[in-house]
């Protein structure tokens, strides 16, 4: 067991170096000056790609390596971005002119005027700093409880913002979008309707049917979500239709999604074939 592991590692290392050399050689033919580094970078990208794909077979040391590297590098990636774009980009310009100059970002404090000789914006934006520090108090065992304050602030913000937002876009807007005319948009009477009974995809009957399905679907779907009433009798039947509609929705969304997922794999395989192996152009 141990032996095979060593052999596999050795083979992979060998291939890695081979790829590095070949790749560096291929890159050196172009204008790129730093071809040894470039060859290494493309090789490592390919190596990491294959390492992750190997997880499909089973967990293995290569996957573990890729996973741990990913965690470390990406955690630092987001930390740096948060620092530069939020702290330097959004906080400093609002609290301190001196620091803004140090970091060479345009100072925007002072937009809100002064009270008692203090810049309002400077003062207001000291609060998140205080709350941020309170959060870090978590590390202290005696004063850890104070980290609940910033947590409470955040939860309050979340609750307040989402209350109106969801009410508007997920409730109110969706309700009014369901006001569909059950006879279609250009109804010309029953006579016309019966003399023109085609199942053309953009035809009147089909559009009408869609509106019926939307109406009944939303109606029964909502009934399914009722919590305070036993789903029996007519109510139960409607809730059952509701489940069916939900099932169609889930099936349809699933089927529709497959395409996107395949594209991602196309992207990766193209990378391997084109940028690494260069067997397609």
């Amino acid at each position, binding site marked *: 067991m141990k032996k095979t592991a060593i052999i596999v590692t050795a083979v992979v290392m060998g291939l890695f170096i081979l790829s590095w050399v070949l790749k560096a050689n291929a890159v050196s033919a172009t204008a790129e000056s730093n071809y040894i580094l470039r060859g290494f970078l493309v090789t490592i990208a390919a190596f990491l790609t294959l390492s992750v794909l190997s997880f499909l077979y089973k967990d293995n040391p290569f996957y573990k390596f890729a996973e741990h590297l990913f965690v*470390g590098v990406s955690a630092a990636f987001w930390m740096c971005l948060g620092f530069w774009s939020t702290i330097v980009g959004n906080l400093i310009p609002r609290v301190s002119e001196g620091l803004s100059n140090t970091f060479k970002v345009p100072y925007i404090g002072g937009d809100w005027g002064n009270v008692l000789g203090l810049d309002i914006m400077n003062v207001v934006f000291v609060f998140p700093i205080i709350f941020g520090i309170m959060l870090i108090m978590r590390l202290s065992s005696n004063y850890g409880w104070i980290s609940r304050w910033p947590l409470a602030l955040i*939860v309050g913000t979340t609750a307040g913002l989402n209350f109106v937002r969801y009410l508007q876009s997920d409730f109110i807007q969706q309700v009014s979008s369901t006001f569909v005319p059950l006879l279609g948009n250009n109804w010309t009477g029953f006579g016309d309707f019966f003399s023109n009974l085609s*199942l053309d995809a953009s035809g009147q009957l*089909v559009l009408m049917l869609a509106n019926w399905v939307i109406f009944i679907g939303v109606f029964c779907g*909502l009934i399914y979500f009722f919590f305070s009433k036993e789903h029996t009798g007519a109510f139960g039947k409607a809730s059952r239709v509701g489940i069916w509609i939900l099932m169609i929705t889930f*099936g349809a969304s699933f089927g529709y999604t497959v395409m996107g997922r395949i594209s991602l794999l196309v992207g990766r395989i193209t990378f391997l074939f084109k940028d690494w192996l260069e067997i397609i152009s």
Partner: protein
Amino acid sequence: MKREIPLFITFFVGTLLIIAVFIPPIENIEKTFTLFFDIIAVFAFFLGGGNLIRVHVHKLVNGKKDWVYSLVTLGGFALMLIAGLFKIGNDGGIAASVTAEGSWFQEIFNYVINPLQSTMYALLAFFVASASYRAFRAKNKEATILLIAAFIILLGRTPFGMMLTGWIPDSFSIFQIPNLAIWIMNSANLAGQRAIMIGIGLGVVSMSLRLILGVERTYLGEEGK
């Protein structure tokens, strides 16, 4: 005090933000609070980063199983942090964009994070297949409906849908599978999505209210009373 102040903060901020929507002069206050959140979240990064270091150093020192990999994590973390905070290789010094082309930060992103990220994402192509193989079986009425809907849409997304049903005359073109697929997406699928969305809207409203009123306070580590 340990209890009441956080509850009061939640109540006060939540109520303020709801009322602000209706008062034009302070309707922009939510932007300030969104910024507050972003700033506090960056402070939280220090907590998270510190925790990450603590966990892996702990593994390393105690020589726990797979400690070698903790070394990889710590190494990657340190490398990226230095590259990003000191903007190594970014032309223009401190004012340069942190993601400038050619910088270490961007190179590591391009050749390490990007392939890892995209390949993890690409695993979905395989999992979508294995999930549909296992889950789409006609076990009962609901599962059968799920299966049929998925199958029609899948067919409709390929040229084969048209090849199979292209012979159907135009006056019955709804039965051509690509048309049927679009029809399902725009009717039943839309209805289901809407019912779910209306429900979610109410769920969020009710949840927000419970939080603001302090009925729900688990996140503070307290039992509701």
